[in-house]
């Protein structure tokens, strides 16, 4: 199988490291991206994706041979038809993850590798989870989600910043709340399945299927792709600003029309939006950008501390609603 369309291009204006921990080939023809940035955590699944951005290499590539070696030991190998594999570390120490891009005769055309550390579950979080068992007050509401976020995406959500500098960490709190909500809404397996389905629809250029799949938010923050296209973090909007009615039935209909407009964009744009939402690092970054843009649009001049605490949190409520279902008509 040739390289899937979704792995032929890094989103415009970004580099591989904007998507996750990465290694780019010296000749720039391909890049390996790890969803999680080292250290990985024992028994936690980490997806790897190979981008083959060179058309010639992409035409030659027929399969991908992956090998994962822990602490210099015997490597676990697997071959995939598409440029994606998943590995769960078995012990602590050092992991060497590598992939060979093979042609139709299983001859290596390129290879990429990453060295990553493997560590136990975050001890601070585990202590909190243990302590919460006997707590009567606020506690760790969903240990599995907390483990995913803290162990896998910590440095991603710690890095977000508001569009204009402000004191305090209200913006980070807000983004984290949406991230937590997104991760709680669908399991990792469900999110992964949706990404697979979207990649399949893009690869087969099945427009109807793609429109249907985009009804759901994508990735760990549950970002709706048309919303992302309306508010790209760089460059001009890919879709015109379109507000949707609030009543559920009208909203659903308007959203479907919006998704059809989105699906009619050129293929490269769709792939870029898909990849931005696909990788946790860029997903969280884009979520933060959209939250900032929604604040600027609806509550310009209000800092995020006021968004969260002023007016009993009404502004935060509305920004979250715009993020989930909108942007919404508010008059």
């Amino acid at each position, binding site marked *: 199988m040739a390289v899937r369309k979704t792995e032929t291009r890094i989103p415009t204006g970004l580099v591989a490291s904007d998507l996750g921990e990465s290694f780019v080939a010296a000749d720039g023809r391909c890049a390996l991206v790890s969803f999680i940035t080292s250290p990985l955590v024992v028994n936690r699944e980490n997806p790897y994706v190979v981008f083959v951005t060179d058309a010639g290499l992409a035409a030659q590539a027929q399969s991908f041979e992956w090998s994962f070696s822990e602490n*210099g030991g015997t490597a676990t190998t697997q071959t995939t038809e598409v440029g994606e594999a998943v590995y769960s570390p078995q012990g602590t120490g050092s992991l060497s993850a590598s992939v060979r891009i093979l042609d139709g005769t299983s001859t290596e055309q390129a290879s990429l590798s990453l060295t990553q550390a493997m560590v136990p579950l975050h001890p601070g979080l585990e202590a909190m989870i243990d302590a*919460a068992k006997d707590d009567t007050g606020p506690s760790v509401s969903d240990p599995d989600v907390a483990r995913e976020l803290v162990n896998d995406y910590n440095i991603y959500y710690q890095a977000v910043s508001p569009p204009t500098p402000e004191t305090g960490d209200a913006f980070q709190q807000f983004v984290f*709340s949406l991230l937590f909500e997104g991760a709680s809404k669908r399991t990792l397996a469900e999110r992964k399945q949706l990404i697979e389905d979207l990649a399949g629809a893009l690869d087969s250029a099945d427009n109807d299927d793609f429109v249907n799949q985009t009804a759901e938010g994508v990735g760990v923050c549950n970002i709706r792709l048309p919303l992302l296209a309306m508010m790209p973090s760089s460059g001009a909007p890919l879709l015109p600003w379109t507000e949707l009615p609030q009543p559920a039935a009208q909203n659903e209909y308007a959203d479907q029309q919006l998704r059809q407009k989105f699906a009619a964009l050129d293929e490269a744009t769709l792939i870029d939006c898909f990849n931005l939402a696909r990788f946790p690092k860029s997903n969280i970054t884009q979520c933060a950008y959209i939250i900032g843009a929604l604040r600027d649009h609806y509550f310009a001049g209000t800092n995020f501390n006021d968004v969260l605490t002023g007016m009993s949190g009404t502004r935060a409520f509305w920004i979250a609603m715009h993020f989930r279902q909108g942007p919404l008509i508010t008059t």
Partner: protein
Amino acid sequence: MCKTTTPPRPAAQDAIRKLPPNTNAPAVIPLQSYLAKYSTQFVNDFVPATPPAFPPDLPDPLAYKRVAFSLLPLRANAVSPYYAGIFDDDTDFSASLVKVAVLFAAGQLLAAAKAAPLGAANAASFNNAVKVEITANADPRVRNANYSSSPVGLLPKMSTILQVSGSSVTFTPTFNTNLSQMIVRSSDSASAFCINRLGYGYISAVLNEKNFFDSTLTPGPTMTGATGRGIWLTANYASDFLVRIRCVNDHPDSQLATTRQMCRLFSMIRLKQLPETDIDTNTLMQSLLNEPKTGPEHTTPWLSPNRPLGVTPLFTILQDKIGVGGLGAARKPSVYSEGLIIKWNNPDKPSQVDGFNKIIDHENSNPNIHLSGEFAVCWQNLLADDLGATNFDGIIEVLNNSISDFLDQKAV
């Protein structure tokens, strides 16, 4: 549409958000566990059973019990993730130990000057850049102080600190001599000379830039009602105490540190990370901190085997700066402090560090995570004069036992 809820952000969720990222450290029993164990076991050896009379202006008469420790095992080219600390975020009066911050500031200034274009025509622009840096980064309490009767200014007096000769920039000979005496002899007059020329504004700015001081935090985790935690210097070790801020063990004061930040400062100098871009200046700084110091009136580490000790240190001291000074307006009793780089050197177990490295890297495939055997250490707030003749034994016991058990990964 009715309002249902704001995004979920209960206290527990925010506590989760604030957890630091996972470290690259493989699973080991943390050094913190051993430090907690031995700082409890040997508490009677470093906290006097009967404290001396304290001056009435101290904020907490029980603060003498908060003897602070920080231990940071080092790798060859980086810090390790095995840091441990007790009362390590208490901002305490730490007397002459804080002179290391002056050394740091001087090094930063020299490195910045070396990186700037040379020539008299560029002197004004460099001075202006430093002024902008101070305006941007110095603590407002330092920037807005009244300097009219202070021998120390806000800005550096450049021509008395730096000289340009051909294509090189160096400290002036007089400044260099005083810098050396400030560290090697812990001379107060030499310290005043250096501080008067560097200026409080520049010292504050560079301490803030490298996060050795945080103006948003309280002076200690248990102290409220004021802000400012870390290394703070607004006195010149002569007669000037320009800005006093609150601290844990003393009345509002001007020569303050937490062991966490002082330990970090020592580690960064040792690892050639300060100044970042000037290895020659780093070498100069390290040479002044090196042990044994030589020359007239040189200081001797508090933990030196040459002092009357009842316990043999299981380490050699590679670098050191000591501190001692009196509390309160009455300036007594005295608190002792010390920052060190030590090399683990247990004669009974010469391969302890190698043994630990095998635990964390049993295949010897990842040498960059190995410990080098060096540790950055800082302790402070010790009433050593009230602990008898072998008054540093308690500190040594804590270091010896905590580090030895950690390297052996003994059951706690």
